[in-house]
């Protein structure tokens, strides 16, 4: 495993007679034999705990753990690190490197399972490429390690983000033992060469930081902004009619992590009436809780008359379908509920005089157990939250929710845990427990008949208490701060 390349030895040189010569300008035009492409371009090749070089995502409470020098390495020492990926598919250790244009590079790492086998991914996040690897305890590269290799070719010259990332599929916590990461130029892995940690400076900012790059453990995330840069994601599936014939297509994100409205408008070009509807609002967490509706007349609008539906420049889903029963629903979101946290970003189109518009419900469509919030329950301009379970909690109503403004409603499992734009609204207890729920319905109650004729920008659901992470909209901290920073609500 030791490096056999000796940079102190000049292997082959050429006299460049057409250029000025000095004792300091000897040029080397080939590498030593067997070097195959050059030095290790990474930092901290054996120190995965160095967060200046290996940035961990998500950055919040569910960040990956690194037990440094806790495991035997391929050389018989104890310099291998055990990395604990949390139950988030985007959980990762990420390093940023500057690379040349149109050049082939090989990213390699030694990995071993703690027991049996374990999957992980090697990624070039910038190129949106990934390769799944399976580590075992019986690899042939010493100590049960296997050297895993991923080769890619760059596009433009510049910064590239490489990652060792949790496997895809159902989010699952996984432990992987890593040692000896390397990046070298060329299509094959060069002989491993140690690369020391950076000295000084700070960790690089991510090219894009989504909600999921900060906060882990999200049960369902519906938004028109990208959840994480570490996955190739779609926001929505859209439907149009062309001469009364249906067509559907997935819509993803642009380079800034926003809904790809260029692609959306191109899709809408020949749509009857210039209207495009949403048949799926994808759950971007990897949990598979996509909110769908196969019924045409119940699908919310995203393009109306050839223009993307927006408010204050932010694209949104519009539930105002006249008398239609707008609804998107994800079945089996959770089996049982104790603590919950809900962050709903919305805008009203009516002043609440049309009562009983239910913006969302988590429950089974009956009154016996559900969480929902209801526009106009207390009269014009009011908003109420109703949480039911073993005990019913009527949150009363909040006034002053204006039409055509973006608001954030937060419901948290804490005493008095109902907030509008960060201001506490209720004197009731928000703790809910003991009931079994099954579905999440957006724009309506599960059983229909209470359509919400407003706009949705984002809906975030945790099947866990997030009171400690609520933060502050005005200070830009925590979950509410993250949402407010993006949507500029207050």
């Amino acid at each position: 495993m030791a490096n056999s390349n000796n940079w102190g030895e000049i292997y082959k040189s050429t006299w460049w007679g057409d250029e000025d010569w000095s004792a300091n300008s000897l040029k080397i035009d080939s590498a030593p034999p067997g070097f195959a492409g050059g030095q290790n371009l990474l930092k901290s090749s054996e120190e995965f705990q160095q967060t200046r070089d290996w940035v961990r995502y998500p950055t919040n409470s569910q960040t990956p753990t690194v037990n440094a020098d806790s495991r035997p390495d391929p050389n018989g020492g104890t310099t291998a690190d055990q990395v604990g990926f949390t139950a988030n598919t985007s959980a990762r250790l990420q390093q940023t490197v500057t690379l040349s244009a149109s050049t082939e590079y090989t990213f390699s790492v030694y990995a071993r399972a703690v027991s049996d086998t374990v999957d992980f991914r090697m990624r070039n996040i910038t190129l949106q490429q990934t390769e799944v690897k399976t580590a075992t305890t019986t690899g042939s590269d010493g100590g049960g390690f296997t050297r895993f290799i991923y080769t890619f070719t760059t596009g433009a010259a510049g910064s590239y983000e490489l990652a060792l990332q949790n496997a895809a599929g159902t989010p699952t916590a996984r432990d992987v033992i890593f040692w000896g990461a390397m990046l070298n130029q060329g299509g094959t892995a060069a002989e491993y060469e140690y690369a020391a940690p950076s000295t000084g400076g700070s960790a690089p900012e991510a090219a894009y930081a989504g909600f999921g790059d900060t906060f882990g453990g999200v049960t369902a995330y519906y938004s028109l902004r990208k959840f994480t840069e570490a996955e190739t994601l779609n926001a929505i599936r859209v439907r149009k009619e062309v001469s009364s014939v249906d067509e559907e297509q997935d819509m993803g994100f642009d380079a800034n992590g926003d809904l790809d409205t260029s692609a959306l408008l191109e899709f809408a070009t020949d749509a009857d009436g210039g209207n495009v509807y949403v048949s799926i609002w994808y759950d971007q967490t990897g949990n598979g809780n996509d909110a769908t509706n196969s019924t045409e007349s119940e699908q919310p609008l995203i393009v109306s008359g050839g223009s993307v539906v927006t408010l204050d420049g932010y694209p949104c889903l519009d539930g105002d379908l006249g008398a239609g029963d707008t609804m998107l629903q994800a079945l089996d979101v959770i089996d049982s509920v104790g603590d919950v946290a809900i962050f709903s970003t919305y805008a009203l189109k009516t002043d609440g005089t049309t009562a009983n518009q239910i913006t969302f419900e988590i429950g089974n469509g009956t009154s016996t157990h559900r969480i929902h919030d209801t526009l106009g329950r207390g009269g014009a301009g009011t908003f109420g939250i109703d949480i039911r379970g073993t005990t019913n909690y009527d949150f009363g109503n909040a006034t002053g929710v204006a039409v055509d403004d973006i608001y954030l409603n937060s419901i948290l499992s804490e005493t008095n845990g109902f907030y509008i734009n960060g201001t506490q609204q209720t004197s009731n207890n928000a703790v809910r427990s003991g009931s079994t729920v099954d579905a999440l319905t957006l724009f309506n109650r599960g059983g229909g008949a209470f359509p919400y004729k407003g706009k949705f920008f984002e809906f975030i659901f945790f099947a866990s208490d997030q009171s400690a992470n609520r933060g502050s909209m005005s200070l830009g901290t925590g979950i509410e701060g993250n949402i407010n920073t993006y949507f500029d609500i207050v």
Partner: protein
Amino acid sequence: MSWYIGTREEVEAYNQKVNESKQYKGSITSNWANPRQHPDGSKWAIIANNSIEPQEDSNLIFEVQLSDDWTPEEEL
């Protein structure tokens, strides 16, 4: 958005006619509308498709909008 009102069988037949006419090819969308029952249980309504009429022998009644009594009281 306008409606047709009638028996459950009549509104389901209308929905079937619309579905057959539209021949949905998208991977998700496969249905025109879901019938809605009046809160007193006496009749059903379905959203009208502007391009498709009910069958000639249908007794469905066309309404520009549903009256308020079609909206159930929310269980608080």
